[in-house]
């Protein structure tokens, strides 16, 4: 088994399609239709990943996410039809690990699930070196290398890259980056993060028009390729 996936979606057709698709990729799948059932089964069935649709009847996705978060250690991938950017930001800041816009193909979903599982494993193992392609960030030694060549970053640049690296593969919102890198009293100016990211890209030799390491999440923030 690749892992246990709890699917929370009120549409029977979607439940059935996901059950089939994910089990062909060796996942153990359990489906429920409401937020209350999700909270109950997250505690009893102990999934590795929860696929949570935001548009649930009754207790909605956001409320479910908030109720799930302190209890469950499962990664949560939020799923939604036509989400606005602020919904994505809200979900990420409420503790979601990733989001996926409906409709999606099974391949894409499987890739996302594997990515969050991999990340979870790395965090659990306390992996000191994080890799994104030929970029290596050694958290223990505070060093960054590209193709083995060291890169000199300012403390702010390093902090930002480190935070992205610790959440490699996960979209990180501008607000979260500002708070993590500049502290709680940071003035919410996205232009700060944009400027620092531009500097990091330049030093890593990354082309902003075709980035390999730090990717823009339009309207949301940034993500380090996992």
């Amino acid at each position, binding site marked *: 088994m690749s892992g246990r996936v709890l699917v929370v979606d009120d549409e029977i057709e979607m439940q059935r399609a996901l059950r089939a698709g994910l089990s062909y990729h060796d996942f153990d799948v359990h489906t429920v239709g409401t937020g209350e059932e999700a909270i109950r089964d997250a505690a009893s069935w102990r999934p590795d990943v929860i696929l949570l649709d935001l548009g649930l009847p009754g207790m909605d996705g956001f409320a479910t996410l908030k109720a799930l978060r302190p209890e469950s250690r499962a990664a949560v991938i939020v799923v939604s039809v036509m989400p606005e950017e602020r919904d994505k930001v809200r979900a990420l800041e409420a503790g979601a690990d990733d989001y996926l816009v*409906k409709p999606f*193909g099974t391949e894409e979903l499987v890739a996302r699930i594997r990515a969050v599982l991999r990340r979870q494993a790395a965090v659990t193992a306390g992996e000191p070196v994080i890799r994104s392609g030929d970029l290596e960030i050694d958290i223990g030694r505070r060093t960054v290398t590209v193709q083995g060549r060291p890169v000199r970053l300012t403390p702010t640049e390093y902090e930002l890259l480190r935070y992205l690296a610790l959440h490699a593969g996960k979209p990180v919102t501008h607000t979260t980056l500002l708070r993590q890198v500049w502290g709680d009293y940071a003035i919410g100016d996205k232009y700060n993060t944009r400027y620092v990211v531009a500097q990091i890209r330049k030093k890593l030799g990354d082309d902003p028009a075709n980035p390999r390491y730090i990717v823009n999440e339009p309207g949301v923030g940034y993500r380090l390729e996992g």
Partner: protein
Amino acid sequence: MRTRTSASRLAHYAVAIGGVIVITAAIALITSVASVAGLSALYLLLILWLGARWGRGPAVAGSIAAFLLYDFFFVPPVNTFTVAAPAGLLELIVLLAVALVTSQLASSLRRARATAEALALESRALYELATAALRSPDVTVALSMLCRRALELPSVSRFALAAVDLGRPSALAGGDLSASELQQAEWSHENGRAIGIAVRDGAVTLVRTHPADVAPAYLPLASGVALIGIDADLATQDELRMLAALVGLADLLMDRRRAALESERARGLESSDRLKTAILSSLSHELKSPIASLRTGLTALTAPQAGLKPEQRELLVDLDHQASRLDRMVGDLLALSRLEAGLQLEKEPHSFADLLGSATRRLRAELATNRLSVELPDDLPPVDVDEVQAGRLLANLLENAHEWAPSGGMIEVGATQREGKLEAWVENDGPAIATGDLDRVFDTFWTRRARGSGLGLAICKRVVEAHGGTIRAENRRRGPRFTFTLPLAEIAAPRAGAAT
């Protein structure tokens, strides 16, 4: 009516003569008791009253009667019309002259008062109409009142107003209009020409060719036509002036009505736009849910573990592509309607390279078969755009280029700063666009082939225009190029503090 007027006039003269006789008798009575000089002045009182009451005619008649009777009874020799002494003659002449001047003064006083009264009446009527019009929420009610007021003028037999909305006249107040009258009204309004009537300097002039009951006069107003049936022989100056004032008020009221109609129409359009977007939004949502189940189900079965034969898998992959296409079309339709309804842009400074990077990533799979060449100057200033919309613009242009470029073909993206704006372009080496179609490629639902939705480039145009820019298509030597402009951000350089 005319006979009654002359009868009452005759009575005025009779009163004048009678009054003079009564005063003569009174003077005779007084002089029989005591000798009092200058009693002829008593006549003047009467003449003054006559002139003020009925005008010059009765007053002059009274003056002459007084002159004759005074001469006959009091100027020696008494009981003859002859005058003996020059002093008596002088007294008589003075009496006549003073009497005539008095009648003249009194009658002009009367005329002035009559005019003042008429004016007061007129302004009062207009004031009442205007206040009623302002109070009444429905201008048509006020206009009907106005028509009724006009009909109170003795010479006016008909007063109707036709509104001309969007070039078509319709009866608005004062009764129905026949088809031919509506036609006349339309002609009059369209050409701005009055028929049978003219209003100049606040007064109506009648230009009659037919009797009023055969053909009414037409007077074009700003947003309609006044149709007036009036008897030219009967109309007094006062009535014509009143009519002019009423027409002026009608003009104002009808203009107000049109303004109200127009704002209502605009509100209706706006709310129907909002409604359209709301319906499309909920419809898109409803459409996307089944598409989501379709895609998840179809792609689930294409996994090798599903145990289908290769040709069956191939069929499912094709079906999934169709479902994706449907999904994109629904999304495009919604995006377009939101843009058309005036989407609120969240503009912020962005690096053009960043925006392009997000778009190329999104289309990674498609662009893998193309060679992508990006040429951006290092000192390109940031643009002031909505990140999501600008991303959509670039993605649509890249997708379009990908569709048209031959397999393995080149897609070139460039940008430069020009005239305070960013000018960027996306070019591919696919077939040229027919010259006549260069402008039409941005039209909604226009597409060069059956596969596209015809919305991608229409969305591009809306996004660019929402940012105050322009977009155009042209054929370069290599292939078609799409060039657009975006506003530059105010910030010239990032804050120095940001990097520390």
